[in-house]
């Protein structure tokens, strides 16, 4: 994963010219919305599209964390249980009846996610374990902890009111969740483009060895990126908790693949070192629209999976062969 990919493109820091992969995904979004609009005109209404932005915010915030890790040339497979764990911790506290614990619900959830991310980062930075395996093991342990804690039953508690407000509320007609996502996106874009930390992230994905020789703190940067990704996963998890109004076992499982697909479709190299936040943004929109519209058309699960995989593979093939040409 950390090896140098022959032909990996340099990070596009200009941001002024239109990224072809972004244009492709935007075109994809337009095609599926117009296509579905012909079958079911309700899709073209403002209400439906705003609702899509609301749902896309969850995938988008999760994809932000995933993107940072992928930019390093690593991957975080502990996202599902980071989401579920955060949801269980925060709903337990928010439903405890103790005012002090109730106010701590959201900070505790976010702290938990950050802690999980830190553990991920330490395993990768100190033991040099491939992130794919280490985060998988962390995910397995977290699964064990949630099973032990909930006793295999539906966890008790209530969603934190703030999470519900963020997930369902609107400000001037715009879903709060989408506004939160814009905020996260703006902060991430600033961090990636304007700070030394952001430059380290791209550089590490390009060549860890060169960055080490340049005297950059490789270990600290790795841990910090994983911790930040854990934080963002738990933020997405809290939003999902508010949206679903509850916590339940397995609530994060359905998000791992779409989140990674959103990042990669948006043009971020899975080998690290290249990709723009705008790409991830439209990638998350695309994945949300695709899955919403497939369920709107009442596709059976089998057909949905085939179409889902086919479209992702198709987009990657178009994207790649054009770049190669």
């Amino acid at each position, binding site marked *: 994963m950390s090896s140098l990919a022959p032909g990996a493109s340099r990070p596009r820091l200009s941001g002024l010219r239109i990224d072809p992969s972004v244009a492709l995904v935007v075109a994809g979004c337009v095609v599926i919305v117009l296509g579905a609009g012909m079958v079911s005109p309700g899709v073209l209404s403002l209400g439906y599209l705003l609702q899509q932005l609301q749902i896309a915010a969850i995938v988008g915030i999760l994809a932000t964390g995933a993107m940072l890790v992928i930019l390093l040339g690593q991957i975080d497979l502990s996202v599902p249980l980071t989401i579920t764990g955060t949801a269980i911790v925060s709903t337990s506290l928010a439903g405890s009846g103790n005012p002090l614990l109730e106010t701590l619900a959201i900070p505790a959830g976010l702290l938990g996610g950050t802690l999980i991310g830190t553990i991920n980062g330490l395993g990768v930075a100190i033991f040099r374990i491939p992130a794919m395996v280490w985060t998988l093991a962390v995910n397995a342990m977290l699964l064990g902890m949630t099973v032990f804690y909930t006793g295999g039953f539906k966890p008790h508690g209530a969603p934190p009111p703030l999470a519900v407000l963020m997930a369902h509320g609107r400000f001037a007609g715009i879903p709060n969740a989408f506004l939160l996502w814009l905020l996260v996106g703006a902060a991430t874009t600033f961090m990636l483009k304007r700070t030394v930390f952001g430059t380290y992230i791209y550089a590490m994905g390009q060549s860890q060895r060169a960055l080490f020789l340049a005297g950059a703190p490789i270990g600290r940067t790795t841990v910090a990126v994983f911790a930040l990704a854990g934080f963002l996963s738990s933020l997405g998890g809290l939003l999902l908790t508010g949206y679903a109004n509850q916590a339940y076992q397995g609530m994060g499982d359905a998000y791992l693949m779409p989140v990674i*697909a959103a990042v990669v479709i948006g043009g971020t190299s899975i080998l690290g070192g290249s990709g723009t936040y705008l790409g991830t943004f439209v990638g998350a929109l695309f994945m949300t629209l695709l899955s919403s519209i497939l369920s709107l058309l009442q596709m059976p699960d089998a057909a949905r999976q085939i179409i889902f995989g086919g479209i992702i593979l198709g987009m990657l093939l178009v994207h790649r062969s054009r770049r190669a040409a």
Partner: protein
Amino acid sequence: MIWLRRHARLAISVVLLAVLFALYIAIHPRGMSVYVMTIWSNQGALLALAALAQFFVVLVRGIDLSVGPVVALTNVAASYLVSGSGLQVAFGALAVLVVGAACGFANGAAVVYGRVPPIVATLASGSIYSGLALLLRPTPGGTIDDAVSDAVTYDLFKVPTSLILIVLVVLLLAIPLRRTRFGLSLYAIGSARDAAVMTGIRVPAVTLASYAIGGFFAALAGLYISMVTLTGDPNIGPAYTLNSIAAVVIGGVALSGGVGSPLGAVLGAFTLKTISALMFFSGLPPLAQPFFEGAILAIAIVLGALGMLRVRSRLERFA
């Protein structure tokens, strides 16, 4: 001593498995018996075949997230094809293996000719394969030939048949991998792709073949699962993808490619299955077992990575 140093990673795997197995037999209420051994070996063999599927792809610096979906698809295919007369069963099994190899070939084509990174190519193709499995058989069912199933899931002269088969597979793979042009090409591509190209190795063709072989082993796993469970189940996939990756890593196969052996992958798979089996008889409260299973998995992985802490030059870590 030199042999031990060269094979230190494999030795760790063997010792780890031996310790876990001894512990398992010690706490198993029925102790050492042919029956206990057969169950243990069958469970291990299922994952070992999936781990071999992962091994061939990882060896050429790839990763196959569609191992589970291919296992599920071929398992479902077997529940339609592997029954009837002797000839039908034989051709059915062959067809199942062809399906698996074709899935692997398609993955390889997307990676080699489509230039899509393996992790996302197989993520997407896996979605297609598991969709196909669901389409073919929405709920578990179907029939598998009893006679064949009995022949491969019991024991032969008090040795589990599955263990004999796995040992045979490992032996059959060991020599071609280390002694033929094709085998050495696989290792060469995994350790230094550019150098392999310069050497004149037909990198695209060999990589493609490696993915197809991976698909073939995933199909063997799917076929063998149908022999053990006697049904086709479209939902068995996900666990096999993740466990096959964990198994090869525990077995000392480097995810960066070019390092590892089929024996390592098989040992890793049996280690993982022994851990789960240990948990079942450990007397731990059932609700606490998944956590300890995860924790032992993490410890096994960290043990495998301990070598990294001894690296003198920090620069070597990033090589």
